């Protein structure tokens, strides 16, 4: 793809032809406030925060393609005034519970407000009396709090365009506009597939996971469910998996995960896990030491080599484990009777 060079606030920035001024600026290290743009989605230009000046005209940077020699100013007295009003209208009725909000410290609205600089006195005059809408807690993995919604539409576009599900869309008009399911019912009763892709992309705390523990480190892994092999990062805190994040660099899933991949890894922490070897004594399975169990297995297997023995290996185990299982069956037990559930 051809590259072009443009100037943003006097800084020469090279970008691929076809990209937008906003994405070129962000990639070049220049922040332009924005809420409704997301790199995975087509730009829509609804939040009006990324207004820039090009050739004396004010245009949304997210909807303006780059071109050779383009000169862009990210701020001017007029832009600052327009932006300030847009931000003030957005936050005048936004709940002020930042410290207890799951998006705290990672919130695009906080970033925008901080960049623009907000006068508390002016906010009070803009505030309208509105009833607090109850939070939709129907989904087992995440909540939807429409009071915190900034109507950027990223969730709507993610669900409709990217996932092809279309569980949510805009409803009502003007100040009453909300993101809603069909018939305004709870999410759990909609066609929502609980993939959580909207939660991942929500720039504020409107769509937020129920599990609030933040990981202290992340470990690269691969989802243990179906054969797609989605790359993911397991968020670990202490000795517990507390979060899962899709690996955007993995070619198999390009960052996407399904409901099982994103929210279904809790089985690892389950209290029902087997924790000790068990040996059947007098008809009952009773706890045993590894030495007891392994000696019993080794001794009994030794008596049943050849045609009397078979291994059922596991399509859930690693390559290395399957390699050892077949080597054991063939080399130690002298039979080729090993199979797994490939056919089921």
């Amino acid at each position: 793809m051809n590259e072009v060079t443009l100037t943003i606030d006097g800084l020469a920035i090279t970008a691929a032809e076809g990209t937008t001024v906003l994405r070129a600026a962000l990639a070049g290290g220049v922040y332009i406030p924005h809420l409704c743009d997301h790199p995975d989605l087509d730009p829509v230009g609804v939040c009006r925060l990324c207004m820039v000046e090009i050739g004396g005209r004010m245009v949304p940077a997210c909807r303006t393609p780059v071109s050779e020699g383009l000169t862009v100013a990210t701020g001017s007295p007029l832009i600052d005034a327009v932006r300030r009003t847009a931000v003030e209208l957005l936050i005048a009725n936004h709940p002020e519970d930042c410290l207890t909000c799951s998006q705290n410290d990672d919130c695009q609205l906080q970033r925008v407000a901080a960049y623009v600089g907000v006068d508390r006195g002016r906010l009070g005059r803009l505030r309208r009396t509105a009833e607090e809408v109850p939070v939709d807690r129907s989904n087992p993995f995440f909540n939807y709090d429409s009071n915190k919604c900034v109507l950027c539409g990223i969730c709507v576009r993610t669900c409709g365009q990217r996932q092809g599900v279309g569980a949510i869309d805009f409803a009502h008009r003007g100040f009453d506009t909300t993101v809603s399911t069909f018939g305004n019912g709870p999410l759990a009763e909609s066609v929502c597939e609980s993939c959580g892709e909207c939660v991942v992309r929500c720039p504020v705390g409107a769509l937020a996971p129920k599990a609030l523990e933040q990981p202290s480190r992340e470990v690269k892994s691969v989802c243990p469910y179906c054969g797609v092999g989605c790359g993911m990062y397991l968020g670990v805190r202490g000795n517990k998996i507390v979060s899962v994040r899709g690996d955007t660099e993995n070619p198999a899933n390009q960052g996407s995960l399904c409901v099982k991949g994103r929210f279904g890894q809790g089985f690892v922490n389950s209290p029902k896990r087997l924790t000790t070897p068990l040996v059947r004594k007098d008809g009952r399975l009773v706890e045993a030491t590894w030495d007891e169990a392994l000696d019993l297995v080794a001794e009994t297997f030794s008596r049943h080599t050849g045609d009397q023995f078979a291994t059922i290996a596991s399509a859930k185990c690693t390559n290395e484990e399957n390699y050892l299982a077949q080597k054991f069956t063939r080399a130690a037990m002298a039979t080729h009777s090993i199979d797994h559930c490939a056919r089921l």
Partner: protein
Amino acid sequence: MAGLVTSFGSGAMTNSIAEISDASCILAIGTNTTVAHPVIALRVKEAVRRGATLIVANPKEIDLCRFAGMFLRQKPGSDVALLMGMARVIVDEGLADEAFIEQRCEDFDAFKESLEAFDLDFVEQTTGVPRDKIVEAARCFATSKPAAILYAMGITQHIHGTDNVMAVANLALLTGNVGKPSSGVNPLRGQNNVQGACDMGALPNVYPGYQKVILPEVREKFEKAWGCSLPESVGLTHTEIFDAAYHGKIKAIYLIGENPILSEANANHVKEAIDKTEFLVVQDIFMTETAELADVVLPAAAFAEKDGTFTNTERRVQRIHKAVDSPGEAKPDCWITSQIAQRMGVAGFDFAGPAEIMAEIASLTPAYGGISYDRLGNEGLQWPCPTPDHPGTPFLHGAKFAAPSGKGRFVPLEYKPSAETADEKYPLILTTDRSLFHFHTATMTRKVAGLEALDDRELLKINPADATRLGVEHGQTVRVASRRGKMTVEVDVTDVCPPGVVSATFHFAESPTNELTNSALDPVAKIPETKVCAVRIEKVS
């Protein structure tokens, strides 16, 4: 897989997942992709957004139909007739890729002859798909390039599953859709490492890398590498193992991370077979329905508690890393298997860690020859990767096919009915399916409260016409009986199923669907026919 080996010389997904987005036509047959492989379904949807035509062939009106330009609703078990019918149209209308057939394929004439039996009257009658739809689909598939075929268990779990796969492969060869990006024949593997387990030779007829156990030179190679003598004849398959146990021939079974009591067709038979097995060792992370019957249960580490590699459906070998410690005394499977071998006095099981095991795998498995832990990095490597400087292979059969002749082989086929068809006593066909929220026998997913909240019980899907005729209502509990077993289950009245067909998953131990299904086997692949089983529905008073 046996079918693809016959046709192409290699039994794996020919192309890569990311390539699907750029296909011009996609035939999705026997795959409920949005449910069983949701992230691959995203690529299919993306292709449709970019202008591709999606053809869905499935007895059920699955979610993917919302994106399909064409929906072919074939009767369960009639896939060969449908695919051969499409091939017949392509040949008759001169739409075949003659240059590709001439240069890259063999046995075309015999195949062409076998098409004679598939005139559209017969195909329409057998499949229940109107002939103009078959013609339209055939034309679209033949003229939109590149065209990709996706399939899953809806193709393979039949008594003629191997024929189904070869019919799919024939169609791809006929239209020149092999060996190019965004084309090919793409079996979507169900388990995270089913591809790897096959690659590693956890199969009764091949060593790692599909090297046949019956070939003397292969046996000698492994005897030399492992320092032991090895048996000459092939072993038993999954279903045959339980048959042998039932008849008292197999006395000890080492069962790792599987739950055949729920997953195996004709599960009652498996239960009896296990009762007759003298010594059953189950190695798992949970006390499964099968582990309850074991003589010894060994607690294993979960994926997040160990290092190793998985090979995904597109042949990509990827690293997993240990994130947390195992609970209690649970141990990685590698450690457990090695310990048993060492206590039996067998040499060759004293590895320092998984990286060292991978080194041995690479030394004995040509397709993995260039794979080592330090090369796997962020993206992994797609086999074949024969040498340490090989970049891996995104799509197979580019210059030549993996078969010894280097050619893609057409296979003449005939239509064979399913082992069981509907009759007076068992008038409905039961086909198995899956839920988005659960996985296989749900050993893992039912331990996650949120997934259980979203889907907590089995629902037998039944067409409104059948429900009315039987006098059963949505939400009512019924008994479903086959020749092998019965279960009680709640009814979901929906036109997702056509009249005469009912479907259920096998995720729920309370409604064990596989006690009903048929373990009749495909004669080549030995896969049980869980997709077609005759049942009747009885009211529960």
